Structure formats: C-alpha cells, structure tokens
C-alpha cells in the first residue's frame, strides 16, 4: 500500500458513509436484545441458580479444627504468622514488601491498616470477654523477648505433637501461652471471639480485615478453599464455588500465576499486576502498536464479517 493509498483510505474510514445503506431500527434491536437477554438470564437464574456457600467464622474454625486454631493463635502471639510478618499496610516488618528493582510501592503506601496480631487477635479479645485474666496478667508483665520465647517454644512443641494436639505437647517453658490460646479457642467455639474482634472497630464495624487475616493465617480456611479449587495455583480468583462459572474474564491475570517462572517469584503479585497493567494499556493503544494493529489485515477474519460487501464490489 502506497502512502497515497493509505491517506486516501483513512479519509474513507473517517468520512460519514456516502454509499449504499440498509434499513435499520435501533430501538427494535434494543428491544430484541433486551428480550433475548432477559429470556436467557431468567432461564439460567431459574434453572442453574447461583452458589451461596456459608461464611466461615472463627467459631466454625475453632470447632472444626481446634488444634489448627490454637497453633495459629500461638503464631499470632509469637509473631510468626503471615499477617504478623506481612509488612505494609498491616505491619512495619522490614524487608517484607514486594519490590521490583528500586520500586517499592508497598512501603510507599505505609502501614495504613496497622495490626498487632498478638494484641488485636488474642489479648484484646480475651480482655473484652474477661477470660484468662491471670494468663493475661503474666503476659502483660513479661518482656517482649520473654513473650516471643514462650510463644515460639510452644509453637514448635505443637508442631511436634501428634496431630498438633495441645493435650499431647511435651512439657516445657511456655509461660501463659497454652492457657491464652486454649481459652481463646474455647471462647471462639461459643462465637465470642468473632464478636470481640469485630467490636474492636466499634458497633457499626464494616471492616472484616482482622477476622479474615486471622482465618487466612490458619490452615483450615485455605484448606477449604483448596478443596474447592479456589487457590492461586488453581487459577484462583477465576473460579467460583461449586460448578458455577466464575470470573473467567480474569483468566489472563490468573494465568501468570500458573507459570512457575512467575508464580514462584517472591514478588509474583507485583510482577503480575504490572504485566496486566502493561497489557491493558497495549490493548487500549493497539491502534498505534505496529504489528499488533496489522493483525486484522494479516489474518483476514474481516473477510467473513463483510463478505456480502466484498461480494458486491
């Protein structure tokens, strides 16, 4: 195509169409479109329906997997859980952020949603519930090092115990940690801890960050998700519970996590978000990207779309 042709063609594309026309009824098409979609939507809603798996609460967790609950609460006291060492926006943990070269957006955002896992997830709920007062007093009187030593030792002992059963833990210097965690589990079974943690944000608290992070630190909640094929290595967010289609439009986002070369990176999330940002930008600006913008000419599917036009040239 010569330069002249190209300019000429742009004119034809940009000008109001001066050639043959056909009858068209915008509102009729809209009405038919709404009608067809309506039939489809109502039929699918009536026949297939929608999923609604019940929420998992701290009560569900403490009841179904008490050993996991106690081990996780111990980790929150020791500061060894994912949340305790997350870095911004939850904690100030150094070196925990995902970075790309010198880019450290996570640190730049700051610790805007601070969580002190020992205090917010264990000690304060017990205080609210008025439980384990002696153990709390011992904990409060101890130094940070002492607290960490107790909780870490108990965590390691739990890991070695058969099935993590707190009743079968070898004897050791765990301070008040066994009582704190066992009491928290017992209170959680009554549903008290759900309310106590939620109430930290006031009566009208809409923010479930603490509860969800606590749940996620354990193995029970992620284990349920893994059983439903909802985890990151199973195309995660694309999937819905049961056999319902999920957010299939997120396939490319999920896809990158399936590639070990990206999924196993310590900064996988940052790399994937950056990649998707660039690809979305490329899609928006496809008209100025050589090669990409020429694909429709090179692979002539348009011959099918406009076949009646080309037939009548």
């Amino acid at each position, binding site marked *: 195509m010569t330069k002249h042709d190209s300019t000429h063609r*742009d004119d*034809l*594309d940009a*000008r*109001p*169409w001066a*050639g*043959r026309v*056909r*009858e*068209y009824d915008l509102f009729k098409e*809209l009405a038919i*479109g709404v009608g*067809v*979609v309506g039939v489809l*939507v109502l039929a*699918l*809603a*009536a026949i297939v329906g*929608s999923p*609604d*798996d*019940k*929420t*998992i609460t701290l009560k569900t967790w403490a009841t179904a997997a008490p050993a996991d609950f106690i081990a996780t609460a111990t980790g929150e006291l020791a500061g060894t859980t994912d949340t305790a060492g*997350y870095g*911004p926006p939850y904690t100030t943990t150094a070196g925990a952020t*995902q970075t790309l070269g010198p880019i450290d*957006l*996570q640190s730049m955002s700051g610790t805007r*949603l601070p969580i002190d896992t020992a205090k917010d997830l264990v000690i304060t709920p017990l205080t609210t519930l008025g439980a384990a007062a002696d153990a709390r007093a011992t904990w409060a009187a101890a130094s940070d090092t002492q607290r960490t030593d107790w909780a870490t030792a108990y965590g390691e002992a739990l890991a070695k115990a058969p099935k993590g059963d707190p009743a079968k833990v070898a004897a050791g210097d765990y301070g008040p940690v066994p009582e704190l965690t066992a009491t928290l589990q017992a209170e959680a079974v009554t549903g008290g801890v759900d309310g106590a943690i939620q109430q930290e944000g006031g009566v009208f608290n*809409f*923010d*479930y*960050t603490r509860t969800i*992070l606590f749940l996620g630190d354990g193995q029970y*909640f992620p284990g*349920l*998700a893994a059983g439903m094929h*909802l985890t990151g290595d199973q195309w995660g*967010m694309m999937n819905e*519970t049961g056999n*319902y289609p999920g*957010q299939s439009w997120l396939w490319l986002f999920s896809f990158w996590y399936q590639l070990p070369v990206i999924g196993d990176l310590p900064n996988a*999330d*940052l790399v994937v978000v950056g990649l998707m940002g660039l690809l*979305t930008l490329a*899609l928006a600006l*496809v*008209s100025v990207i050589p090669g990409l*913008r020429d694909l*429709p000419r090179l*692979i002539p599917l*348009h011959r*099918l*779309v*406009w076949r009646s*036009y080309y037939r*009548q*040239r």
Partner: protein
Amino acid sequence: MTAVTPGQERAAAPTATSAATATPTPTATATATPSPTATPTQPPAAEEDRTWTGRTRRWLLGKLPPDKLLPNTQPSYVASWIYVLGMGAIGSLLFIIASGVVLSFNGPTWYHVSALGHFVNSVHLWSVELFFFFMVVHLWGKFWMAAWRGKRVLTWITGVVSFAVSIVAGFTGYLVQTNFDSEWISFQAKDALNATGIGAWFNVTNFGQMFMWHILILPIGVLAIVAFHVVLVRVHGVVPPLEASETDAQLTHPDTTGE
C-alpha cells in the same frame, strides 16, 4: 447528511414573527423598517447566540444530529451477527442494574434467607456473566475488524476502559456476596493490591468500603463510560470494511440495490 442545521431552523423564525407583530404598537413604531433578520426584541439568531447554552446546543447538534443519534439506516456493510453483540452487552447491563436495584431494597444479606432474594441474586449473577460474555466476544469482533480506524481511536479506548472498569465492578461484587466465596476472594486478592500499594486505600477485606464501591461508585463509572462509548459509536458511525475503496460499487452506485 440531511439534517437541518440549527441556523437554518432559526432563520425562518424572525420573518414569521415580524409579520405577526406588524400591527401599530409602540414596539412596531420603534422598529419602523424591520430588517428580515433579528430585531432588538427578537432572540438572537443561532449564529449569534453566544450564550454558553446556545453554543453547547450548537456544538452538540453539530456533532450528533438526531438522525445520527437515533439512526434508522446503517451502511450496507453492517450485515453480520457480529454487530449485535454490543447490544447484547447493553441488554445485560440493564438486567444487572435492575436486579441490583431489587437486591438493594433489602440489603446484602437478604438473599441468604429469601427464595425470591436468591432468585434475584441468580439473575444478578447471570446477567453479569452474560454482560462479560457479550462484551468479550464484541471486543474480539471489533479487534478483527480493526474498528479503531478512521478517527475511532477514542471509541476503542473507551471500550477497553469500560471492560476494565466492569472487571473491577464485577470483582467488588464477588467481594460483597457475604458468603464463603467473598471471604476467600478478599483474602486472596489483597496481596496483589497490597503489593502495588493500592491495598492500603482500597481495602478488599473492608466490606463497608467494597460495598459502597460496588453499589455506587463503580456502577456510576460503568454506566458513564458505556454511555460515552455508545455516543462515540453514534458520532463516528460504524467503521467501513478493511480495504474498502472509493471505486467499490456500493460507493459509486449508492442508490442501486446490490442484490
């Protein structure tokens, strides 16, 4: 283009008005030799209307005259099922909004305890699935038609942006189902947002925040960008076929039928 410009419409008016006010009144005396154009008592002709409103109206009518906004003809090349998919997405969007409004009446947990609520929730889910279904196939079609040609780049970009905003809107919907799925998705999604620093301000585990985004901010965003996209489609018309040429019979003989 057969549209009457605003100027033409207005040009006839002063003459008629002058005739009607030709009786000897103080006003008529003051304008003893009425000019065929505007008199001081007449509203200014459109060309001279320098009010913001007048200019805006003139600009709007120039960009999008009524027969372009609501067309009853289309170029002959607009003859493929690929052209109905955009309308399918718009139809689905109407069902999303309608079912969302019904869900709003009783709040986010109603559908757990009511059969009707569950049905409306199902309608909401499936209209979203169909919305993305039609939008994605529409996108594929427009890509292979290279529909950004002929000053239609902004139309293409608004289409991509509406897809992106819709994804965020759909995502926040998954976060506010108040069930296991929303708990898990919020737990899982936080990492990508936190890694980019966004999570500190857009906290997916904060139900209240996500709920407001889902039922107010993002619907406004989706509706606004989709409406802008549709207006741009009407302004620029449907892109002509690739390789169309001035010598094509459909351009050189526009009045004959091709079949």
